């Protein structure tokens, strides 16, 4: 019998495979890493997310909803909403991640999700996978964003060119720049929350982006008749919460507003574009004391609503602090006159050179009008409280600015020290530079503690203003004619506040210095002067730390008296004053029209 050798040996031929690497997976199974940029289930860093909803807007499958989730409330800089994904619709294109302005949204390595519920497709990233942060794989790369994080730069006069005149420093966007800048906005509206007036910011920016400047102007005038002023000098809290600002430069909301409002370059054109509805006269009369931003705002909207409005203004020009306090290189006279001119066309009456308490009594105003709005601002400057303050050449900053702005001659010589660190101090310093003086600012705290806008501080430095922080003035030295000769100050060190407040300056004993000066300008704050209000009425008006206490409609404890602007809020800026004026309109309307019924 022949042996079938081949049949015996061939099974062993499989042994030769034993020395080759296997094609099968290893046991026990080794888990393979997913790809580096794998696009799996969403994760959202809930604390980073501001609920702008850009993810929901861009989603081409409408897979993302913005929903209310527990623990997050609508507040400044946060809509309180968070995205939820319908995974039945999601195609993992990751546009939502690429567009996310904060970078909070990402995709993870996770792609397996097991559940008994066949309808469990709704997935709230960050809530349903709180541990997702460790598994992030696909993020929006900072270098390649869908959004434009760079602002269109604003053209300005060069620093040393500026000090030669009072010409406007900021040159404004041209049409192309404005359209491009407007296109950076994601339209979330988070900015509107912090705007004291709650202007319709995304709407007018969208209109500008579409080339519809007139619509933008109309939208701006809906709740701010001083849009152009704000476009130039607003403190723009809106830009600090801008969604784009989380990773880039915020949208230039202020400059866009400036661009739009400047398109209407005279009062007639504003009227033609805004073309507001004016209600027929309702027979009610309102008196307003002070033609500052709050008084003007209230007067404008009250006029549109059929009220007979008269503003009593002590000075010979409108605008209050925006006329006399803000230097002309930031807000030119013609701009204010144009805006107020438009209001007068809408029926606002302004009596200039009429100081209440001097040219007319408060009681006369009370007789003439059914309601009175007081918007007198802080005109009374605080004193430094040091020796020599009453000497010739020691001036208060707001008096100084007022004189310069009304083109009255001021002699400050060629070496000026400004005391203070707020916007008024910086303004006084920059104006002094334009009058040809060398300027030093003495401020008691550090530069980073200065309440002035950083842009203003930088602007002053560009123009050659020397800022000397942690310096406390001790005495103003005078010559035999009682004219300012020098100022003595001491350096200070910062002492941390044990209660967690901001550090306080403490004089370093013996570290005293003297600067020779020709003028000292004090800018350490202002208060209100209520002496024109008769005592019997003033007694009934509740005040707190120099300010009049008002309700949410600006009404004081005396029902027919309303108060607005610096005397009624702690923010002390134009936009807050405008907001007060706007709210007072509602209060006055309610008071007088309800009375009728």
């Amino acid at each position, binding site marked *: 019998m022949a042996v079938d050798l081949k049949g015996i040996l061939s099974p062993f031929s499989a042994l030769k495979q034993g020395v080759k690497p296997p094609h099968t997976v290893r046991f026990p199974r080794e888990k393979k890493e997913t790809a580096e940029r794998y696009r799996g289930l969403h994760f959202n860093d809930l604390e980073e997310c501001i609920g702008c909803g850009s993810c929901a807007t861009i989603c081409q499958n409408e897979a993302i909803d913005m929903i209310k989730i527990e623990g997050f409330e609508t507040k400044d800089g946060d809509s309180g909403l968070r995205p939820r994904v319908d995974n039945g*619709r999601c195609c993992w294109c990751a546009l939502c991640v690429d567009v996310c302005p904060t970078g909070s949204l990402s995709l993870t390595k996770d792609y397996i999700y097991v559940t008994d519920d066949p*309808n469990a497709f709704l997935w709230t990233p960050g809530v349903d996978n709180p541990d997702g942060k460790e598994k992030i794989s696909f993020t929006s790369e900072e270098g390649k964003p869908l959004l434009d994080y760079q602002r269109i730069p604003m053209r300005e006069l060069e620093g040393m060119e500026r000090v030669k005149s009072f010409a406007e420093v900021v040159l404004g966007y041209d049409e192309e720049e404005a359209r491009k800048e407007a296109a950076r906005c994601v339209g979330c509206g988070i900015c509107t929350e912090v705007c004291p007036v709650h202007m319709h910011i995304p*709407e007018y920016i969208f209109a500008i982006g579409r080339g519809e400047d007139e619509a933008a102007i109309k939208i701006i005038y809906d709740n701010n008749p001083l849009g152009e002023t704000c476009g130039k000098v607003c403190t723009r809290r809106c830009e600090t919460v801008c969604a784009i600002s989380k990773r880039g430069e915020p949208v230039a909301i202020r400059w866009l507003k400036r661009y739009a409002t400047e398109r209407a370059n005279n009062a007639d054109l504003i009227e033609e574009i805004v073309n507001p509805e004016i209600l027929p006269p309702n027979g009610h009369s309102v008196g307003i004391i002070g033609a500052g931003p709050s008084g003007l705002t209230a007067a404008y909207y009250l006029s549109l609503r059929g009220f007979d409005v008269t503003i009593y203004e002590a000075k010979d020009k409108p605008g209050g602090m925006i006329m006399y306090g803000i230097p002309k290189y930031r807000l030119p006279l013609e701009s204010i006159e144009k805006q107020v001119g438009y209001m007068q066309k809408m029926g606002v009456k302004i009596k200039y050179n009429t100081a209440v308490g001097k040219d007319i009594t408060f009681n006369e105003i009370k007789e003439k009008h059914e309601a009175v709005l007081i918007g007198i601002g802080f005109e009374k400057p605080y004193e430094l409280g040091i020796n020599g303050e009453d000497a010739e050449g020691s001036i208060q900053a707001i008096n100084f600015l007022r004189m310069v702005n009304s083109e009255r001659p001021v002699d400050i010589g060629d070496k000026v020290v400004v005391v203070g660190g707020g916007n008024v101090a910086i303004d006084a310093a920059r104006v002094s530079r334009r009058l040809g003086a060398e300027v030093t600012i003495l401020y008691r705290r550090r530069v980073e503690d200065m309440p002035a806008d950083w842009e203003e501080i930088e602007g002053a430095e560009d123009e050659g203003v020397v800022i000397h922080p942690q310096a406390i003035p001790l005495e103003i030295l005078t010559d035999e004619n009682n004219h300012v000769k020098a100022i003595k100050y001491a350096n200070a060190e910062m002492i941390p506040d044990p209660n967690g407040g901001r550090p306080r300056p403490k004089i370093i004993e013996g570290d005293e210095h003297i600067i020779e000066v020709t003028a000292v300008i004090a800018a350490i704050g202002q208060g209100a002067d209520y002496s024109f209000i008769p005592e019997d009425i003033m007694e009934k008006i509740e005040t707190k730390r120099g300010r009049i206490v008002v309700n949410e409609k600006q009404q004081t404890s005396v029902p027919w008296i309303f108060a607005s602007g610096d005397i009624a809020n702690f923010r002390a800026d134009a936009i807050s004053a405008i907001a007060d004026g706007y709210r007072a309109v509602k209060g006055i309307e309610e008071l007088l029209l309800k009375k009728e019924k």
Partner: protein
Amino acid sequence: MNLEKENKFAKQINETFHSAVVKVQRERRIIVELRSDLIPPFLSFAKEYLSFIHMAHYSCVDWLEENKFELVFMLWSYEEDVMLIVKTKIDREKPEFVTIKHLWPQAETYEREIHEMYGVDFKGNDRLGEFILEDWDDLPPMRRDFDTVKYAGEHYFTRPGREDAQDVRETIARHSGEEIPDFAKKYSIRRDEE
């Protein structure tokens, strides 16, 4: 960074195709932009003379604002390990091109896809019928003027449980007491409807 072989290719290309705009983007990557009628001879040249024998990818980009489609070919040379990206723009109104399936048979499948997704007609390719999309009678869906959101809204139901969705702008306005006037509301829409 040594770009010797890349620059050599660039020189060879320029010598033969004078109108070609050649850019060595980085190591192992060359980008060539060329008039569309020169593409077939150029691809043939790249394959036969420059060793780019492998067509790795073939795609299309919609330049809506310019009213152009851009065809993009990615070729690979195994000899030199270099990727050659060839780009050409064609008219978007009447998008036509010639097939290149005689150079690479797999181009036929890419052309079918580009035809279905962008509507480009490839002369000489007789398989341009229905490909992935079934019974499609709308605009080719990868064109940028195709409104994906609208299509999704019309064709897919909204899953139950999504009724609690909120509008961000309205939520903020309600919270702050902002009254958006009617004439301004059409500018609140974040998707440009046009």
